[in-house]
């Protein structure tokens, strides 16, 4: 494997990890506040659909982005209603949201565009362009650094940079601000927050809204950044992988970066080497495609140490029984 190939694989990994990273951070906010969310997949899907629809109708990727966020937030609100206000089962709510998104996107898409749930292909300003960072062209020929800068770092859509910036930002918010302190506290022991005179409900809704926002970005990136339009079920299980990455990362932002990078890298390698020839055996492509799932199980089996979720996670906060 030569240097150029490594760069190309890394470049692909960056693109593939971006939706995972955004969704993973989305889950991080929600779960850190004590609300488990297996509906990331559904929210991303809904966002991808609304983003693509509006981007197509208006010809503006930015308006699409806003719509994507709105679509995802709407589902977040449903999740909030069931798991915060009505203290329902968070897992079930998540399952329902995934179903809802998978049905509604096609139903509405078919009604609006008549293409069996697909949106028409986006062109021009309906998509987020790849951004060439300054001096990318000039530096391209500098050895080592040149390709890294020009090909790996430069040349992604804005949402990729946003996703990466979200990591330090999330870390900062979580560990350096009042909001972060309270958010972490409410996921660990909501009663401590409540007795401190801060509303548990409001904090959790805020967390869930951020979760919706980030899932919205992830979905919009899928539909208007990576590809040019919506295709039904286009999230293809990425929400679940993001969830696994979140557990792998033990609910920490920098680790989330690492975990999603690992999954992105795996997929990039599987794409590049569909039949991985290890000399003695050749791993068939069917196995390579299932590899992220198998790996997730292996990781969860505790080879990275036990992941302890936020203590109040999954439990509705009940003051009066």
């Amino acid at each position, binding site marked *: 494997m030569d240097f150029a190939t490594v760069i190309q694989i890394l470049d692909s990994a960056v693109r593939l990890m971006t939706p995972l990273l955004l969704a993973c951070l989305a889950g991080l906010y929600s779960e850190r506040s004590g609300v488990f969310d297996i509906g990331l997949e559904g929210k991303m899907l809904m966002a991808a659909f609304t983003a693509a629809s509006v981007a197509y109708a208006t010809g503006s990727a930015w308006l699409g982005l806003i719509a994507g966020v709105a679509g995802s937030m709407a589902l977040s609100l449903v999740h909030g209603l069931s798991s915060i206000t009505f203290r329902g089962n968070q897992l*079930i709510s998540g399952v*329902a949201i995934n179903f809802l998104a998978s049905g509604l996107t096609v139903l509405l898409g*078919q009604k609006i565009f008549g293409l069996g749930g697909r949106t028409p292909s986006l062109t021009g300003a309906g998509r987020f362009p790849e951004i060439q960072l300054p001096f990318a062209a000039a530096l391209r020929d500098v050895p080592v650094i040149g390709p890294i800068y020009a090909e790996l770092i430069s040349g992604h859509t804005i949402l990729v940079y946003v996703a990466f910036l979200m990591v330090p930002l999330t870390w900062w918010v979580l560990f350096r601000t009042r909001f972060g302190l309270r958010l972490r506290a409410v996921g660990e022991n909501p009663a401590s927050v409540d007795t401190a005179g801060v509303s548990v409900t409001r904090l959790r809704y805020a967390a869930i809204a951020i979760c919706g926002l980030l899932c919205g970005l992830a979905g919009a990136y899928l539909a208007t950044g990576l590809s040019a339009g919506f295709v039904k079920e286009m999230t293809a299980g990425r929400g679940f992988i993001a969830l696994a990455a979140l557990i792998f990362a033990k609910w920490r932002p920098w680790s989330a970066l690492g975990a999603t990078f690992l999954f992105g890298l795996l997929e990039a390698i599987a794409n590049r080497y569909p039949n991985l020839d290890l000399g003695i055996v050749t791993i*068939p492509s069917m196995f390579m495609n299932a590899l992220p*799932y198998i790996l997730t199980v292996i990781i*969860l*089996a505790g080879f990275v140490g036990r992941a302890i979720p936020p203590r109040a996670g999954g439990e509705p906060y009940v003051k009066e029984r």
Partner: protein
Amino acid sequence: MDKMPKWADVILTPLISLILAMAISALVILAIGESPWEALTTMVDGALGSSYGWGFTLYYTTNFIFTGLAVMVAYHASLFNIGGEGQAAMGGLGVALVLLYLPLPHWALALPAAMVGAALFGAAWALIPAWLQAKRGSHIVITTIMFNFIAAAALNYVLVNLLRPVGSMDPASARFPPATHLPKLSEMAAGIGLDWGRNTPVNVTFFVAIAACLLVWLLIWRTRLGYEIRALGRSEPGALYAGINPVRIIVIAMLVSGGLAGLMAINNVMGESERLVLNAVEGAGFIGIAVALMGRNHPFGVFLAALLFGFLYQGGGELALWTSIPRELIVVIQALVILFTGALDNMVRMPLERIFLAMRKRGRA
């Protein structure tokens, strides 16, 4: 003292939730420019209006009973088994292997043999997530989801490379020998001179499913194992105190759960398609979650909820077949039913409780 009578909790709450889900569904139908009333009549007619419709409704019901019971048994041990899909798919593989490779002269022999195969394969597929949960604490929700994906990949590999007859386009196994075909309910009805549900897939497995309901009820509420499953599900420290081995119970509960999910293959693989096709489960594993929840984790409730979802499935199928409403509408309706009966049930329960409390206070005064 409970806040409201048990019947209200068991019947009234799900019923009102269901009505709410239906009301929202009606709005969705309106939003896509169709008539909810027409949709409803099409569904009722198609699913319940004839012995033909019933034949299909009961066929789907049978599927959902198995997956619903599977979710329910695990739930009593407070395990959330989302892996019914993969376990049922693997159960299909078990059925196929038994029927293709064992010379079974008669369905009455083939049925128990296939049941063993289905249950074993389904249980085996639940074993690893169970063991990981019990021993390493990895979250069973995630592992079972992953195992669904892995099952799909594995099944694809097996069907395409191992079981597919050469020259066949179809990633499906060969047909099972005719001797192993299960009697359809319509044939049994014809046997007693009744013209009921001709050409519908519902078969003897329906009775197996009902027997499974009874057995699961016995298991959970009448046996020591069930007692231990329920105790562990309610309190792990309590279970330890009582000498119940959590690892053992988690593994057994998941094996039973996976086995039940696997048994679904008797209905769809052995009873209906009579060969193993890709994606034979068609989401029944996920619907099992809703069925168990709506059924309040009681076998009788599971039966009723499975019937409801059987109706939705068949009625919705008819809707998509004969009207211009896309089939995804069923998915939306299912989602709403799951949401309202499973996650938003307190939205109904809380006001109901208040009403019952007020009534009781007035009664006392």
